[in-house]
């Protein structure tokens, strides 16, 4: 029973990060109907930027802000100079996929050039090592902080999307770009903010991921992208509540499969799920109470 509770804590902490990351991926799909395969690279850049901030002696919340803003700026730049010109040119839909893959490649190359190819860790002073022992369950303070930070980010995101004027604009564009234009929504700034938010969520998730495992490397984006896409499919493409639920679900599934099956096939579980979902219910597990995109 204690082992079970332990796994739940571990699963929730990793799952909350997956959820934050996947919200960004699925938001872009919900609003613009495209998949941005560079989100993983944004996550990696956020992790690197956050690490650099922590090394300069800034506390973790500041590092989180740095990571989010860094990822967000990259996201906005990619929209301004890559995705928007591509949409304007009216090229085939896979051109966006190719371009985002190429962007990811470029960013990984740049990160390697700046940070080196080795795996890096946080300076010991910047990460809390407190561990609470509650009835045989070891809870790291760090795990709690990560879960709280992730929940805070999700709440902030929900607030922006539901209660602010830019959030309403984004939801209108998600409903229909033409309708948004007719009712006077500035579509261009709404898409720009969409990409900024998605990039910021990816960057923040990168920092949290780096802190949780204390590992930052230029190659962390690829595996994170895989998780993000898995969660997107689990929750249904463009379904934000689905992405939150899917993130926690994937985190728990992974942790339990390591504990009770085998660590070797942790990643295979996620992919197996993708196939299963595509076969049985391609609209995602949670399409029943879907709000209809974003």
């Amino acid at each position, binding site marked *: 029973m204690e082992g079970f509770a332990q796994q739940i804590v571990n699963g929730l902490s990793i799952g909350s990060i997956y959820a934050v990351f996947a919200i960004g991926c699925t938001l872009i799909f919900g609003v613009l109907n495209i*998949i941005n395969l560079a989100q993983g690279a944004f996550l990696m850049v956020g992790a690197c930027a956050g690490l650099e901030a922590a090394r300069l002696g800034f506390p973790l919340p500041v590092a989180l802000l740095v990571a989010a803003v860094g990822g967000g700026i990259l996201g906005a730049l990619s929209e301004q100079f*890559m995705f928007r*010109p*591509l*949409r304007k*040119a*009216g*090229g*085939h*839909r*896979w*051109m966006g*996929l*190719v*371009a985002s*893959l*190429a*962007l*990811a*490649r*470029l*960013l*990984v*190359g*740049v990160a*390697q*050039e700046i940070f080196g*190819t080795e795996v890096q860790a946080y300076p010991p002073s910047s990460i809390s090592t407190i561990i609470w022992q509650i009835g045989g369950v070891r809870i790291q303070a760090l795990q709690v902080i990560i879960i709280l930070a992730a929940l805070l980010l999700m709440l902030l995101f929900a607030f922006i999307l539901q209660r602010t004027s830019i959030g309403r604009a984004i939801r209108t564009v998600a409903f229909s770009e033409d309708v948004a234009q007719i009712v006077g929504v500035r579509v261009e700034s709404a898409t720009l903010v969409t990409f900024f938010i998605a990039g910021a969520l990816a960057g923040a998730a990168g920092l949290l991921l780096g802190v949780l495992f204390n590992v930052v490397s230029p190659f962390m984006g*690829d595996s994170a992208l*895989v998780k993000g*896409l*898995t969660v*997107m*499919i689990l929750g249904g*493409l463009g379904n934000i509540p689905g992405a939150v639920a899917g993130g926690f679900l994937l985190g728990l599934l992974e942790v339990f499969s390591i504990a009770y099956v085998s660590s*070797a*096939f942790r*990643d*295979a579980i996620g*992919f*197996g799920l*993708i*196939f299963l979902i*595509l*076969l049985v219910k*391609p609209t995602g597990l949670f399409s029943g109470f879907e709000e209809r995109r974003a």
Partner: protein
Amino acid sequence: MIGFFTEILSSYGNVIDLCLLNILLAYGVWLALSGNMFTLGTGGFMALGAYGSVFLTTQLGVPFGVAVLVGGLLAGVAALVIGIPVLRLRGDYFMLATFAFTEVIRVIALNWESVTGGAIGIVGIPRYTETWQLALLAVVAVYSAYALRSSYFGRSIAAIRQDDVMSQTMGINVLAHRLTLFGASAFVCGIAGALAAHLNFFIGPTDFGLLRSVDALSYPILGGFNALFGPMVGAIFTTLLPEFLRFSSQWREILMGLLVILVVLYLPGGAMSLLQGNRLARIFKRQSAEQRSFKQRAES
């Protein structure tokens, strides 16, 4: 003169082999793209062909030619198994499923140690692949692409690429056509993987990851997938560029990424569209009108 050629072969033999192999791969990916299927499964299919054929030649002593064929068939069958459920779905699900497939294969290759050697891979594979075999297959690939474009099947594919719903209405079995193309694409990629394994002495799980799939996709897109020689030009260019510029591997990644973005943004028809005014190009670019109307329907 003959001495000159043998000298070139001996000093640039590896680069030439790599070029020919990538040409084969480029046409393999082109087959899938021509049916409007954005595949990220190339790495997985290559891995199936490579590990399958190496298992046959080194452990069972099967002749090389048979092993390569079986490797290709293995990849083709895998494509049919994925394709039957996934090709029924519209949108980006196909891309996501092939992406997942490549990763599944990588994870299996990493963990099934008795067959794949795990993370270390398989070392000391006998070198059976000859340059002439690669050259022959590259020629066959280009010819097949040419024959396909002018065939009834090829015209059906072109119709599907423009509008799959309309094609279905006109009596083309869209699913069957796509499935055939996807299987053929995987078969070619599997063969390329088998040949690559018997060229390099070594295979490991990292050789066939997502990066391989992305690389393979960039060949026809850089060269121009509407032109017959587009995939070939893209493959040769992408293979030769880093060889001649001698960059560090990081700079190679940065440069390749930048190049692909610039081509996609400013030259969406690929390098071959530069030749548009040329008479030779016009012969091979019968589909430029189709390409234009195809551009207008970004959705599908």
